Each structure stands twice: as C-alpha cells, then as structure tokens.
C-alpha cells in the first residue's frame, strides 16, 4: 500500500533535495562536466553577491507588507461574509475568484491596468482630474509596493476561506450564553471569537508566511524583478540561475550556485517559521 507513495516521494521530493544538496558544492552549467568547488558557492553568496541580499531585503519587505495588509482584510471580510444575507454567496465567490486564477494571467491583467503609458488606472485618475500626469506605478520607487498590492488582491480570498472555516468552528453555545449575560458585539469579537480562533489564526499566518516567501510568478510577469532589481525577490533570483533570461546575448546557467542559493533561502524560511512557531506557542493554549 505504501509503495506508490514511497516511489512518488522518492522521485518528486527526495531526489530533488538530494540533487540540490550535492550540486551546491559544484560549479555546473549543464553544458560542461560539474566541477567540485567545495564551499566557494557559499563564500560567493555571503561575501561577493550583494545583489542576493538585496533580493532578500525585498522579499522581507514584500512578505511583511503583504501579510500586514492581507490578513486583517481577509479576517474582516470572513467575519462579514460568515453571516448569511442576500448576495453573500455571490460576494464570497467573487472574492475567492482571484485564488483560482492563474497568477501569471492575473499579473498580466494588472500590467495592462498599471503600466504608465496606456494603463487604465492612470487614464481613469486623469479623467477624474485626480492626477495631472500619469503615475509610474511600476517605477524603481513604486514597483515592489505595487507587486505587494497585486499579491494582496490574489491572496485575500484564500485566507478568507480559512478564516471562515475557523469562525464556523467556534461553538454557537458560547455566543448564546454570552448573549444571555449581555455581551456587546465588540466584546464578542475580542473576548470570544478571536481567542477561540487563535490556533486557526496561528496556522493561517504560518501558511501565509511560507506562501508569501515563495511568491514569484506574478512578480516575474509584472516587472521581471525590475527596474534594476527594485522588485526582485530571492526565489526569482534563484529561478534565473537555472533559467537565465537574456533576450539577445549569451547567458549562462549556474546550477551549482542556484542550488546553494536554494539551500540558504530554504534555511531563511525555516528559521523565520521556527521563530514564529516559538513566539506563538502560547496561542495553542487558549482552549
């Protein structure tokens, strides 16, 4: 019974991990034979590659801002839509829709809306006389924040569903007995709903954290990490090590360095997740 699972796990999980753990010590461009270079990929990463650390900084900015915006909005929307009213099902579906859309298509649509030369947003703002000249939403200064907003738009529906599942797991008897004691609506929220949902919130935040660290598809389509790395994130940087993009000239894949970057990035996410779980241990003790 276990054999199919073991085979699939070995092929799709174990083998890639072992591959990465091997080649992080090699210089390998897939054309020539791999050359063992010891720890040089890591030396380069820590001492000779400031661009990578720029992508790490961008990633933390992206993750932090995305979570700060997404989770409260998703929670509030979940609370509102958890009640049945006319059209609530339709609104839920509309908000959930971006989650099932292909993120690259979504990003392409946002590019058409936001680009500074023919974007719909600038046109609308100009017709409403809210701005004089078009704003470059994807400029060096604005690109990363714009990517966050696109990411938020795509994520709210997903976390809304998680929060709704959590809200529905809170026993109704607790609310009923509290109402008999004359509890107010804000008290209900802060004294019952949120405390009872702490384990769910903890899990949702962890999933959002890991998911946001790995976001790259929409950024790749929207800005390609530019201009000049302004919106480049660490997984997009790794991607380019394996699939170097150059429209007109020779560019060389760097599998070995990409493998080393993957290990370091996975470690960064692991450390952040571990720290988060340690810091939120008490959230399990609510019940």
């Amino acid at each position, binding site marked *: 019974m276990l054999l199919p699972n073991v085979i699939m796990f070995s092929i799709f999980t174990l083998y890639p991990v072992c591959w990465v753990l091997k080649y992080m010590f090699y210089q390998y461009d897939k054309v020539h034979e791999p050359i063992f270079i010891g720890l040089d990929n890591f030396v380069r990463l820590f001492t000779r590659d400031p661009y990578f650390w720029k992508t790490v900084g961008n990633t933390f900015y992206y993750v932090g801002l995305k979570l700060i915006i997404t989770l409260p909005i998703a929670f509030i929307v979940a609370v509102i839509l958890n009640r049945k009213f006319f059209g609530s099902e339709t609104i839920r579906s509309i908000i959930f829709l971006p989650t099932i859309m292909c993120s690259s298509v979504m990003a392409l649509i946002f590019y058409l809306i936001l*680009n500074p030369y023919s974007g719909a947003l600038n046109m609308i703002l100009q017709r409403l006389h809210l701005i004089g*000249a*078009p704003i470059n939403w994807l400029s060096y200064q604005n690109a990363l924040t714009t990517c966050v907003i696109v990411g938020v738009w795509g994520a709210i529906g997903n976390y809304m569903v998680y929060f709704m599942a959590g809200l529905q797991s809170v026993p109704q008897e607790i609310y009923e007995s509290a109402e008999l004691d004359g509890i107010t609506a804000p008290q209900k929220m802060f004294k019952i709903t949120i405390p009872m949902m702490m384990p769910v919130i903890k899990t949702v935040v962890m999933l959002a954290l890991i998911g946001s660290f790995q976001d790259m598809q929409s950024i790749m389509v929207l800005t390609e990490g530019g201009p000049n*790395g302004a919106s480049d994130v660490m997984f997009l940087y790794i991607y380019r090590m394996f699939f170097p993009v150059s429209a007109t000239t020779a560019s060389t894949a760097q599998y070995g360095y990409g493998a080393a970057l993957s290990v370091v990035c996975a470690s960064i996410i692991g450390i952040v997740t571990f720290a988060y779980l340690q810091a939120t241990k008490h959230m399990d003790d609510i019940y």
Partner: protein
Amino acid sequence: MKRFLALLCVAALCLSAFAGLAVAEEKTKVVIWTNSRADYDYVLPCIEKFNETNESNIEIVYEVYSDNYQQVLELGFETGNGPDLYCTSGPVWSNVTYNGQGRPLNDMLTEEQYAFFGGEKAFVNTINMKDGDILSLPYSISTPRLVYNKDIFERAGIEKVPETFEEVIATAKTITEKLSGEGIYGFAINLKGPASALGRTLDYMMGPTAGLINGYNFKTGRYEFDKVTEIVAFLRQMFADGSAFPGCDQLDIDPLRTQFAAGRIGMYYSYTGAEYGVYTNQFVTDVDWDFGPLTGNGTRVGLQNADGGKWYAMSIDTKVPEAAFEVLSYLESLEVLSGSYEQGLHISMIDEVIKNSEVPAAIQAHPLMAKQETDGLYPIAPTGVAIEGEDYYNVFAGHILGIPGYEDLDALAQDLNARYNAALDKGIADGTVKEVVYPNFDPMNPAGSMN
C-alpha cells in the same frame, strides 16, 4: 456456436486489418518551434502546402512562442519534449545550439545546396558552424537601425535624419518640447528587459564606435566596457532631458511598437528584419515611418554587427533527422525563401534568392532595410562565461534610468571589466570557457580576420 466463433474471427481479422491501415497511415511528425511572429501569416500556408503535398508522409507541427522563447526551448529539451527543428536566432544560437543542442547537418547537406547557400563565404565558424560542423543554414541578415516617424519629424520641423549621438539627442529634445503636450515624445527604449533594450542599441553601436561585441575585444581577448561608456551616456542624456517616453522602464518591445504605431513616439531602435513585418501584419499602422542609420559618434572604427547566417537548427535529440532535414530543405528552398524575401519578411543574405526575386517593395520603400556595406558578420564573444553579480545590461540600464547607486559610469565600467574578466579567466582555467583571441582581428573586416 461455430458460426458465432467464425463471425468473431472475421471481426477480429477486420479490426486488425483496420488497425494495420491506421498504423500505415500514421504520419511522421516534425515539430518546429519559433519565436518569429512577424512571418507567421506567410509561413503557415507554406507549411499547410507541404503537409498536403509531400510524398514522404511528413506532417509539420508549427508552434510559435512569444517572450521567454529560450527558456521554453531549454525546458523542452531538458524534459525530452523539445522540437525537432527550432529557430536559432539571437541568444538561442550561442546559448542553446552552439552549446551542444544543434545536430550537425554536414552529412545531409548536398553539394548543390551548399553552393546554393553561397559556399564557403556563407558558412562561417561561430556564425552558423562550430568547429567545422554546420549547425544551421544561411538565411537572412538583420541589424538594428534608427526607426523614426516621418510625420512627427515633419510636424516638429526636423529635416535631417539624425546620425550622431548629439543629433539624436537634439532631435529627441525638439520633438518632446514641441509635441509632448499631445503625448508625443522624442525617443523610446524597451527597458523592461534591459538585455532586449541594450541588445538592440548598445550591443550594435559598440562595433562601429569601439570595435567590440558584448564589450569583448577579440584582439586582446579582454572585456573593455570602459570603451562603450559614451554610448551609455548618450542614452542616459535623453532620459535626463525628459525626451524619453514616460514608462520606458516598463516597456517591452511590442508595447513600444504599439505606441509607435499610435504615433506617440518619434524614434527608437530596432531590427531591419522585423519592423516591416511588424507594421505590415502585426500592428498595422498609418504612420509614415522609415529607417535611419544606427547612431554613432561620427568616427567609424568597425562594421556594424549583423545578426544573420542562420535560421533553423536541428535538435541533436531528434528521432527523425531525415524527415526534419526534408522539412528544413523545403523551408530553405528557393520557392519559400523567395516568397518571404519579396514580401519583405526577411532580408536575404543568399545571392541566389536575391538574384531570382523581385526587389521587395519593403526595400524599395525603406532602402536601409537592405544590407549595407557597413554591415558585417562578427564572430561571437566567448560563451559560458559565468558572471558573478549583475550583468552589463542591468548595470547600464540602471545608469540610463538614473537609479540611485548607478551614477558613476566610469566606476561601473571598471567594475564590469573586473568581474567579466575574472569570470573569463576562471572559465578558461577550469575548461568551461574556450579562449577566443584573434590577434589580427580587424573590426572593419571581422569575418575575414578571424585567424
């Protein structure tokens, strides 16, 4: 019962016969991938005709890919789902075909075909051959020029097509000052992808102004980016003047073309082999446009590099090399090439095709589309050089856009020299990069001085 069994046997026999027929009728599929969209409307009927008329039971499956073509191609080959024939223009030649994916065609190419394509002068190492192996057949020649809107020039009172850096800067400024109120700007460049933008400007301007390709000096075997800073400074100046179209940092080439087709851009740089097809078939426009010369500093030290000498390559992994070569021979036949040339969809480098075709209307209308005496085929710079940090496209794009941290152009060039030459030396030392030095290299005669 016996009758039933007999019926069953007959039915089984019929089924196997039909199955046999089905197998016999199964066609040999030859899959072609390309990133060329401009000639799609011409090539497709040619392929349909081949599929209907060929006697070898071959079916061509023709697939066109948009941006990220090289990535799609590499992924296809890595997963065993790659094409049999693929367009090998631009970086795909050096990154994919030259790096081992191309199947040598020497054993299949006939003497007649060799002569048809131009013989020795058309088959050149690093351009369509590697160490004597023919990896692609000669086809077209294409190189960037200045593309300008004649109507805008007229409205802005500009009479002379600019040729030097100073003239282009002044022209862009004049257009912007006079017409920006209508949303018309003097100059645009597709800097969303710095490699694509500078690959059609800086890379081709550095041949005539500095005798380099990709910053590489074939004579010394070193990268010398300090010699190309005047080109970068020229492009920067138009941004500093406010003459650049707003949002150039987010422009891909096709959105740029749509804005040009809408009459909102005075000048940009692009390829002779692409723009006519683009504005005839893809983004049809009423704009009266033409090619001007690629901009220089007024003193020529080398020819202008032209991308050419190759079209399709055959994958080393193809299971049907004979069928693929039959398809390749058809696509590079006089019939197909002549039709494409006459329609202005490519600029032929094959004398036989030029001789047997009418001068295309496109070249009559845009004379600089044709190959000029100042255009030439350069060898390719060393491949496989693994750079640490940002490549020169990103670095120079940062300067052109005026991004903080990229202000000091000389320091940027020195840093690029150091990093590129270190990577080159390392690659040569560990055997992953082949040293490329031509001591007698003459940029005014690049293909003839590679020894």
